[in-house]
């Protein structure tokens, strides 16, 4: 195979970017040189911005708009070559340091103090730095994505949307809110439980409650988001309204991760693995959240109108209601998925019952409740969503977390599969089985398997990014909100 040659300007901008990253991490050194670290940080960030925008210009400006995937399957960085391993290692190392050895980042964090002060009036923390870099990545790679797909209005508008939600909702608003009301915890309005798994933690609820009406309003919004708002929007538009238009994890995957979308494994084996993993995590987070709230209520019997037993009973009723709805409306699906569904529901019910009998103030199933939570936080919250989810972009594709780990995606996926007007429609028998759709599906859906049979695609995992329809050379696929939700594919 021919080794793919990048142009001189692409190489120059890549070098510039690496220099910027180096400078960012080395900003601590600046203090000894008597250069203010904020100046160094500012220059480092400008350099990185210049590099990404320059690289974008060099890569796409000389060419006409259209699908630009040349050499993706050949280049070292995008086909699991040496550069892919080097980048994965670097990204993973960054996450490990960020989560577990943040003291090493201290000099770099201080460089962000002035930005943090101007927003929230507080000095920067490691999470502020992470949020700032994350937002910068979505904005800059968002520009790259928009330039690359400038011929498609769907892609342009969708990307502007994720950039907007990241900048305003995830980054700026929580900082401003903290300035307005110091008691409020950091709260990204668009991040729902169970993605935001600590929403119902005791300390979190307490800080909401202590922030009085605004805090309680936000807590209520959190509950409404998952139980009312998300089902309605998913019914109308599919889970894409969240996963590829609003969500920050999705936002990073779509923009910074775009170059790696074809690395997602689309074998039947990985589909099986995906379903077991994502639903197990959903069960785990549901049990542990209910457990945490349950023990919190046991601990504070006087403070709340709802008793632990009533709470468990409410959760069980809710589950029964959902099961009844599925039973009466989607029997065909139950016939296909009965075994798995039975296991999931069985585990949940056993869990809730066990919780009621085997828990006291500090224990859920005789396990200390805080340790259940910290185990989830460590393995799912940190290792999976961060270290593997983002660190492994260059090796496993850009949606590993969304596909195998995100409990929010699991819930929205069930809603999408069972009660949604969204589907990808196939244009009759026009498919030539070329494989571009399947290869570029970041969720590893074998789109072609449906398209070549002229069937519509109704998959729980589809995030509606629309790239399959872009790369199809025959115009065979179209994302639509007009399907009959009662007909199951």
């Amino acid at each position, binding site marked *: 195979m*021919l080794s793919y040659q990048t142009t001189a300007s692409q190489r120059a901008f890549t070098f510039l970017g690496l220099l910027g990253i180096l400078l960012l991490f080395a900003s601590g050194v600046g203090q000894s040189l008597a250069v203010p670290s904020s100046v160094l940080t500012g220059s480092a960030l400008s350099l990185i911005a210049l590099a990404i925008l320059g690289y974008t210009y060099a890569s796409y400006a000389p060419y006409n708009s259209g699908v630009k995937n040349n050499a993706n399957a050949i280049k070292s960085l995008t086909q699991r070559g040496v550069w892919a391993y080097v980048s994965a290692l670097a990204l993973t190392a960054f996450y490990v340091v960020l989560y577990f050895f943040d003291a090493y980042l201290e000099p770099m964090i201080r460089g962000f103090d002035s930005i943090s002060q101007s927003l929230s009036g507080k000095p920067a923390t490691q999470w502020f730095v992470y949020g700032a870099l994350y937002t910068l990545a979505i904005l800059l790679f968002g520009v790259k994505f928009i330039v690359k797909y400038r011929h498609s209005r769907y892609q342009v508008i969708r990307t502007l949307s994720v950039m907007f939600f990241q900048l305003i909702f995830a980054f700026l608003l929580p900082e401003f809110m903290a300035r307005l009301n110091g008691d409020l915890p950091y709260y990204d309005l668009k991040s729902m439980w169970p993605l935001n798994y600590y929403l119902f933690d005791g300390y979190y609820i307490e800080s909401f409650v202590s922030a009085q009406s605004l805090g309680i309003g936000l807590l209520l919004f959190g509950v409404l988001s998952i139980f009312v708002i998300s089902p309605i929007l998913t019914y109308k538009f599919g889970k894409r309204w969240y996963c590829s238009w609003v969500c920050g994890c999705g936002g990073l995957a779509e923009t910074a991760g775009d170059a790696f979308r074809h690395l997602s494994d689309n074998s039947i084996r990985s589909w099986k693995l995906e379903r077991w993993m994502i639903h197990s995590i959903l069960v785990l987070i549901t049990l542990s959240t209910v457990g945490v709230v349950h023990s919190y209520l046991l601990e504070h019997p006087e403070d709340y109108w709802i008793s632990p037993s009533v709470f468990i009973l409410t959760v069980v009723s809710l589950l029964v209601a959902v099961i009844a709805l599925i039973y009466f409306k989607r029997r065909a699906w139950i016939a296909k998925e009965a075994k798995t569904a039975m296991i999931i529901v069985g585990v949940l019910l056993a869990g809730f019952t066990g919780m009621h009998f085997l828990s006291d103030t500090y224990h859920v199933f005789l396990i200390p409740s805080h340790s259940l939570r910290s185990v989830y936080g460590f393995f799912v919250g940190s290792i999976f969503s961060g270290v593997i989810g983002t660190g492994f972009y260059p090796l496993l594709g850009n949606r590993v977390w969304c596909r195998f780990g995100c409990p929010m995606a699991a819930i929205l996926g069930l809603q999408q599969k069972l009660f949604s007007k969204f589907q990808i429609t196939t244009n009759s028998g026009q498919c030539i089985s*070329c*494989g571009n759709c399947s290869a570029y599906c970041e969720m590893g859906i074998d789109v072609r398997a449906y398209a070549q049979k002229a069937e519509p695609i109704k998959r729980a995992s589809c995030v509606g990014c629309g790239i399959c329809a872009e790369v199809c050379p025959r*115009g065979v696929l179209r994302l639509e909100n007009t399907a009959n939700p009662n007909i199951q594919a």
Partner: protein
Amino acid sequence: MQEVCIIGNGVAGSTLALNLSASAQFKVHLISEEADYFFSRTALMYVYMGHLTLKQTEPYERGVWNDSPINRIRGRVTALNRTNKQLKIEKYLSGTLLLNYDILVIATGSKPRFLDWPNTHLKGVSGLYHLTDLEKIESYTQSHKHCKNALVVGGGLIGVELAEMLHSRKIDVKMLIREPLFWSSVLPDSDALLVQKHLESRGVEVVANTEVKGFLTHDGKRVSGVELSDNSQLEAQFVGVSIGVQPHISFLEESGLELNQGILVNEHLQTSEKSIFAIGDCAELRQSDPKRRALEAVWYVARQMADALSKHLIDGPFTYVQGHWFNSAKFFDLEYQTYGQVSNLAKRKNSEQHFHWHNTKMTKGLTLAYEAHSRLFLGVNAFGIRLKQSVFEHWLDQSASIDTVVEQLETAHFDTEFSKNYTKELKHAFVSNNS
């Protein structure tokens, strides 16, 4: 249980094999000289351009084949013995095999057509059809330093694919075509012009009214250019040939099967021999639909033939019906879809009227064909616009009028969401055209 031998694992052979293997009546043997696993031939260009790996072009996961009862044989059929119902196969890397069949299906596809030119054997000359063609093109154009100029002889769909492939490696490409406009042997001039403008905007020079006399060489091994019919010469380190394809049936010359250009078949896709069928590019219909051709080397046709023959073999007599013509392609960034009949200048009768519209940038265009007096809708060519096949088939079935089609055009809309709506402009043009 009947032994079914299928020669060729392209879309026709593979689709048939999978359909038949689902029925317990058949033991299926699928023979291929070309590849172990069915891949999408139409995607070879994407492998060269680095959009896909060859494995990603395989329409079914390898497990589907490995777990199926289909006996896949990699080898070349060298002889067909009709009296004993036996095939002789030279197996890939491992000797000769004799295989008996109850039913034989020939699905050997096409091969690139070459004229009687001198020096076609030179290194640096290739068609684009077979997997080995891709390997040859890869080695001939390996480095930009050694291959700066390339020529594509002939227009058509494979010609454009070749041009786009070479262009992606920054090789300078000229297309040499016999016609006055690109693909005007098929497209009406308005459409041919639209496509040609697009090719030129992508940096491909289309040299019209040109025929090639032969290939040139400096060292007797590698091609160095071509000589044109006006005796002028063009330099090139690679020459792609795409003047069409022809059925790949030379191994049947002694078989006694009735052949014309392809293998002659009846409405059940049966050859002159009762137990032998032919499907795909290599099958030539004895009686074809007057609106269609007897020999159609198209992906969709091959798949439809395979589906029709599956039904015939599994459930008893089933007739292959050609139906409404449809096809699609992509010329660099310009998508093309066609439903029904839109004749080019040479074939167009006086009664066939065309309404053509395109936007000012010439990135979208539509040609609607209809009968002048009855206003019966005949067909559509769409460029840069995606249209719903089911809606157009419905209109063709219902003998809808051109006015109905234009009026209800939105219902056939298949462009991605938020795309700019062109129909208002188009309808306006249609009304002023008719008044």
